[in-house]
């Protein structure tokens, strides 16, 4: 079978660190071929174009209209996902979209409607579902090994920028810190936890309470959030997401799932993998950012699942409805943090449970 023709929309950090490595692997295996790369930063698109021998452009329509393109990998910030998906759907191109699905539920609903009307697959890239640890945990839960899931918590810790490449994160000079384009840590990071809670608990999320704050001096977007989700049947999901750890602190995700008959837990590392002791300087964690569960293998699995879905017509393993439900939880958390009261989860109509 010939490779699936792809267009990459957005060539920023998530494309560079996650999606392009996966595309390289699948291209080497003859499963995909990157035919176009688009970014408003044309230099970034051209760099991808040179490596993959594909077209490079600063225009969305030029990328999508490239001959042979059958599917789109959407790596832009969430504020631009609706525009990209609607443009792709109009051309009957399948879409693998980065998380979060959108910046608003109205956008998400419009994306779902566009995909249904066009008959395309719209898969949301909740990448953690494809990491080995969560796959194994999910298997254990589905096999009944921990009993009924009663509480799931994942805390996520990232440091303040220690390197020039990340120096502008959570400032107005980067989209993560621009109120026009970013809701904050709940969508940049916490959307992962929202999706994992839904996936593992498997019940309807009812309401969310959250507190958030801006910790970055001069910042305008909350880069810290703590939230708790109450589910039908009494289970809880809870998460504290921080981007405020000291520079060099090892980024990690600490996941714990408790059931009525057992538990399962995982962390990226035990805060030990890369520690160094130096006389007079104590301990430090060099290059700790590299040890996140943000692993290449997960994105390879994610892309392979998307390709399989397009080729076979089977529903993608993370549907647009899954993406909307995670978004609904995350936006309820954001609304709660702003209102100071628990907020209901907007389930919309026809959301698959």
């Amino acid at each position, binding site marked *: 079978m010939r490779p699936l023709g792809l267009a990459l929309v957005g060539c920023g950090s998530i494309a560079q660190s996650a999606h392009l490595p996966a595309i390289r692997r699948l291209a080497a295996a003859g499963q995909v071929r990157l035919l176009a790369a688009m970014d408003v930063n044309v230099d970034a698109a051209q760099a991808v174009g040179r490596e993959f021998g594909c077209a490079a452009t600063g225009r969305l329509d030029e990328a999508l209209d490239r001959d042979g393109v059958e599917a789109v990998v959407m790596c832009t910030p969430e504020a631009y996902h609706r525009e990209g998906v609607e443009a792709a759907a109009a051309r009957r191109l399948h879409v693998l979209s980065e998380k979060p699905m959108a910046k608003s539920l109205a956008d998400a609903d419009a994306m779902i409607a566009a995909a249904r009307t066009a008959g395309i697959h719209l898969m949301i890239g909740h990448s953690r579902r494809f990491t080995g640890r969560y796959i194994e945990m999910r298997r254990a839960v589905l096999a009944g090994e921990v009993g009924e899931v*009663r*509480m799931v*918590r994942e*805390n996520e810790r990232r440091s303040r920028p220690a390197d020039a490449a990340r120096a502008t994160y959570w400032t107005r000079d980067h989209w993560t810190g621009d109120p026009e384009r970013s809701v904050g840590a709940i969508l940049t990071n916490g959307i992962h936890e929202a999706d994992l809670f839904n996936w593992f608990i498997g019940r309807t999320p009812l309401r969310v*309470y*959250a*507190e*958030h*704050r801006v*910790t970055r001096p001069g910042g305008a977007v909350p880069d*810290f959030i*703590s*939230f*708790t989700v*109450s589910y039908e049947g*009494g*289970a*809880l999901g*809870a998460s*504290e997401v*921080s981007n*405020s*750890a*000291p520079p060099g*602190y090892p980024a990690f995700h600490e996941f714990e799932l*408790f059931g*009525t*008959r*057992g*538990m399962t837990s995982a962390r990226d590392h*035990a*805060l*030990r993998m890369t520690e160094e002791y130096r006389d007079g*300087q*104590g*301990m*430090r964690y060099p290059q700790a950012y590299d040890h996140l569960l943000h692993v290449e293998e997960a994105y390879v699995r994610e892309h392979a699942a998307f390709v399989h879905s397009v080729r076979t017509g089977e529903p993608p393993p993370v549907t647009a409805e899954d993406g909307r439900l995670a978004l609904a939880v995350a936006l309820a958390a954001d609304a709660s*943090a*702003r*209102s*100071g*009261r*628990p907020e209901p989860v907007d389930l919309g109509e026809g959301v698959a449970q």
Partner: protein
Amino acid sequence: MRIGVIGDGRIGARLETVLDRLETPPTELVGWAPARPGAQPPAWAARRGVPARETWQELVADVEGVVLDLAADGHWHQREVVSEAVLEAGKALLVDAPLADFPAVYERIRGAGRRGGGRVKSVRAVRASAGVRDGLATVADGGVGEVLAVYASLHLPVGEAEASFGQHVADLLQVALDAAGAVVPARLYAAGTPAGEAFEAVHAIARMPAGAIVTLEVARCLPQALGLASECTVEVTGSAGLVRLAPEQSAVTVVGTVASRPIWREDTVAAALEDWLSGGADSEAEASADLALMAAMRMVKRSRAKGVVVGPDAEPVEGGA
């Protein structure tokens, strides 16, 4: 010192170990008494041959010190009545913190101690551990800069600690509040799994007056097969550093450079007993912190029961981030 134990909670069982290793000052355990009519002596008392008295009043009259061993859940009034009587009689009292669940009652009991000359030592099970103490001292000294957030979790075995679940919430709240300045939260929301089941979890999020966000998680959730008494994690994130205390590693303080701290694992209940037997008493700072603790405990309880956000007086509040 002639001492007696009232009630059948978590402290008494530790007393045996402490008494066996304590040689000076000489201590004599002269009796046990029920805190509530009809309660039976705990296993440790029967095993040790400790005589049971009919009433707690009879025991108080016969001893110099009282270990009030009664879980707070549902027994606040009884605890408070006994505490006041013990201190009014000029006896030493060991009891789980805090002394009361209302500030007015708390002040009344403290007043009884001042009048009668009794001293009180409160058990602060998590707060007293060496790692937590050192970590909070770093925070109090400004070692992490402005406190931005506090995360604290305490996991207990499924099916255990049902009678003292509220006490465990209090144990952890002490730590979280101390890290955030020992003041009453501006607002708090608590969610929980259904109360009273073998598996029980409470997750609370509070905003402190200065803006710090405190997240608290107490759960009876550990599988019995793990054989763990508890797992405790405390993280204090500041503008210039971070303190992390966790069960799986040495506690870590990050302030530009990093220093290791002792792991949290010692028996702090037994340590409090030993200190009390040696004449130890609560400091004024500890007593003051208890007032904030009482308020926060009421906030957790009320919010969880009502499903609403509550303010410092534990009454529902409307929004306003």
